[in-house]
């Protein structure tokens, strides 16, 4: 209730977040929906628009900051995470968003990605995963499925793809969510969850590149299949999915297994309840790894933990403590230590 009142006081609308620049993505690109969902989330998020900073690397997705009427920084290929880290550490009051793609964050910026997550700097990251290089026109990316034929893999890729969720878990991530670009309402909800989380909030958006990798996610997002091929997770709720809402996940012999409620004596009580806040990430790890056809693909907020202070807040308190403890007030005093006067 309090939040609603505050929101009203801030009195922002979606239009406040639209910049005067012409949006130059291809017609039909998934990025438009993401941009719109972010703007909607910001209106509801109760932050001062002057405090919002969008930072990106290079790629189609990384043009994003130009289309937001906030502070924005369009960086270098792969380096957005490092730039965003510097911004947030320098001024922890800012609401920092890092926009990246699968090439930007998983290839050239892979190192910065894992270290950002490991440090747990308080920012929201949106990783546009279209499993292809779009801006350079169609080469395979680190998330392209093995065997895919692209401009640089005429005989099929012979590399195993990364799953951003696995890397996030491996780097001790405190927040991971996955969402598809065809569901604007859910996108907005997930982005709002990300803003509520203190620490690095990693959101993977399965985004469609209409030109170079069209329908790459259609097995997950297609209207006819999505209910059976996606499981949308919500904290505290049983992991149930399917058109008939009769499928669920159970844990058997340390493995997740898909079961049907009503078959083989399975009832709703047997189905795992999603605990996004469990510091132990074992189950979250299994959830982010689920792939078709054995499993549905997990979407929603898979992990939401705040077991560590974010880096920026911790550093700020170290600074405050150091100031409190120190008797030295000026650099002059510092440079005069161990000195002597010659008359």
């Amino acid at each position, binding site marked *: 209730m309090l939040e609603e009142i505050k929101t009203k006081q801030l009195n922002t609308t979606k239009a406040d977040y639209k910049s005067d*620049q012409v949006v130059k993505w291809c017609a039909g690109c998934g990025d438009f929906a993401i941009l719109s969902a972010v703007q909607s989330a910001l209106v509801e998020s109760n932050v001062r628009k002057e405090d919002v900073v969008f930072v990106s690397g290079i790629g189609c997705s990384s043009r994003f900051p130009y289309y937001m009427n906030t502070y924005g920084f369009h*960086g270098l290929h792969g*380096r957005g995470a490092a*730039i*965003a880290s*510097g*911004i947030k550490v320098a*001024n922890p009051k800012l609401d920092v968003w890092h926009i990246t793609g699968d090439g930007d964050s998983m290839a050239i910026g892979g190192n910065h990605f894992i*270290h950002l997550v490991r440090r747990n700097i308080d920012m929201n990251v949106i990783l546009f995963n279209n499993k292809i290089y779009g801006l350079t026109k169609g080469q395979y990316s680190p998330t392209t499925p093995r065997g895919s034929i692209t401009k640089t893999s005429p005989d099929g890729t012979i590399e195993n793809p990364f799953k951003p969720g696995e890397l996030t878990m491996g780097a001790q991530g405190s927040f991971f969510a996955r969402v598809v670009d065809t569901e604007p309402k859910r996108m907005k909800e997930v982005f709002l969850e990300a803003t509520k989380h203190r620490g690095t909030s990693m959101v993977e958006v399965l985004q469609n590149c209409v030109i170079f990798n069209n329908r790459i996610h259609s097995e997950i997002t297609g209207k006819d299949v999505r209910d059976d091929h996606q499981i949308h997770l919500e904290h505290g709720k049983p992991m149930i999915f399917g058109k008939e809402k009769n499928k669920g996940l159970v844990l058997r012999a340390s493995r997740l297994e898909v079961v049907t409620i009503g078959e083989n004596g399975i009832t709703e009580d047997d189905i795992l309840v999603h605990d996004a806040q469990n510091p132990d990430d074992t189950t979250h790890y299994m959830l982010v790894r689920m792939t078709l056809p054995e499993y549905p693909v997990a979407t929603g907020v898979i992990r939401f933990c705040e077991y560590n202070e974010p880096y920026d807040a911790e550093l700020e308190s170290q600074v405050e403590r150091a100031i409190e*403890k120190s008797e030295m007030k000026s650099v002059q005093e510092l440079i005069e230590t161990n000195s002597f006067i010659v008359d």
Partner: protein
Amino acid sequence: MSKKTSKVIEVDAIVVKFAGDSGDGMQLSGSQFSDTSAFAGNDLSTFPDYPSEIRAPQGTVAGVSGFQLHIGHKEIDTPGDLADVLVAMNPAALKANMKWVKSGATIIIDIDNFDNKYYKKAGYIEDPLGDGTLDGYNVVKAPISQLSKSSVKDLGVDSKSAERTKNQFALGILYWLFNKDLKFGEEFIENKFGSKKPLLAEANKRVLRAGYNYAETVEALHTTYQINPIKNRKGRFRNITGNIATAWGLMAAAERAGMELFLGSYPITPASEILQELSNMKHFRVKTFQAEDEIAGINAAIGASFAGDFAVTSTSGPGLALKGEAIGLAVITELPLVIIDVQRGGPATGLPTKLEQADLMQALYGRNGESPCVVIAASTPANCFHYAFMAGKITLEHMTPVILLTDGYLANGSELWNIPVIKNMPEINPPFVEDNTEYQPYERNKDNLARYWALPGQEGLRHRIGGLEKEDITGNVSHNPLNHERMVHLREEKVQKVADVIPEIKVSGEESGDLLVVGWGGTYGALVSAVKDMQEEGKKVSLAQFNYIKPLPKNTAEVFGRFKKIIVCELNMGQFVNYLRMNLPEFDYLQYNKIQGLPFMISELKEKINKILEG
């Protein structure tokens, strides 16, 4: 502390070299003796010389760590060519340093380590004590290890710690030899071990005294030396290394600008101390970000700069190579950023602990596109403070990245520093913008062409910048051909405008003459010493040492024109001389280059300069 039998000779200057295994505490001994000499009012210059391996095999020449110290009654500009006194803790230390001592020098050895086992490790075939190697030297064979251990026997320190006190024994001998007050040495030990390790403090103090008493007692040392305090020098002083001076200069600039200092960096020899020092300065609101690599270090700094901190990144040559792309980003976003390059021998990993003026061309040109930066270079350990401060002032007021070049010799070397009063240093006024004003990100100050700086969080100033070419004034992305050409020229002109605020080049010596010796950065000490010597010999030689390289001081051509010949001396293949040939092609330049990982020796400079004057 009476001097019973020996006679005291007053000398102007003395060069001492400490040498031992990397774990023998030679760096500590050197620092301790430097501080003592500074407190005694001597001028000084030091240089540590250590291997890149942390602990190379014990007793081998590769594992020898050295510390050279030049103290004097007159002005001291270099750590000295050759040593008057060598302390050699083992045969390897002797072997590694014999060619760097003067003939007739005093050589103090730890006789306990001079046996066949150590000779073999050091690669001696014959016993150097018996084969004539040391004929003509004053050799003091002191049982340092044994006497150190026995003097702490009853204290109950463990044998390893007892063994480690032996550097203090050698130092004690030097305190006696140079009539230094043990009080300063004891205070140094107290500060080092403090109240946390009182036992170790006591052991070290006791061994220091034991060394002193030993020297007084043995008859090997007939003479002691007195180096009187330097005259005509007033003010507040301390001993300081280049890396610490650099860190503090940045802090002074932050304080003067009323800003917080942010350092994004990755550890690299010989620059790591800047990161370490600033990591301990949180009580001044200094934030350090030890990044995952060089690239993240500079990009985080660029982010911090965008957010409104005084941002810095520090590195050495290989790191500067990795930072190239991001320096270009700072150039095109026109954000303040200081990049410190503590140069070392290259290419690739090269010579991490050795000296080379390796990166001038890289600093000037090592980026894609037309990517101009201000390039400046410090020239003594202490003036790293001044140039770090000036790097801050220029970057914050001119909205352009500044590359500050120092080197391993300045960084780890030390000298006496006349401490400035910070509040008397120039003001720093970044071009900040008031909230809710009409703001165009690439509108410029007409005088210096700096764009104005609006910070995230400010009301009514929301804007976007980035690495794509900017439209003049608005800062919107632009691929317009004429706009690009205009922006390229604007960024270059903005850097050239810095020439309006930097000092003119001043020569050491006569304003005109037969020969102008030209140097830049850290070679100042050796060049000025050589030139002064030759001036005293009546030769018409002057020195122009450059600290501001891009842009060059405005009077550079005028000064060059007043000399018959110009020779540019550098520790590389001729990077500055070629820069001068390009910028001031109307002059003929001779050049003298050395690329051995070592500083210039005054003697070799004089030899070269004399040849030119004769020819």
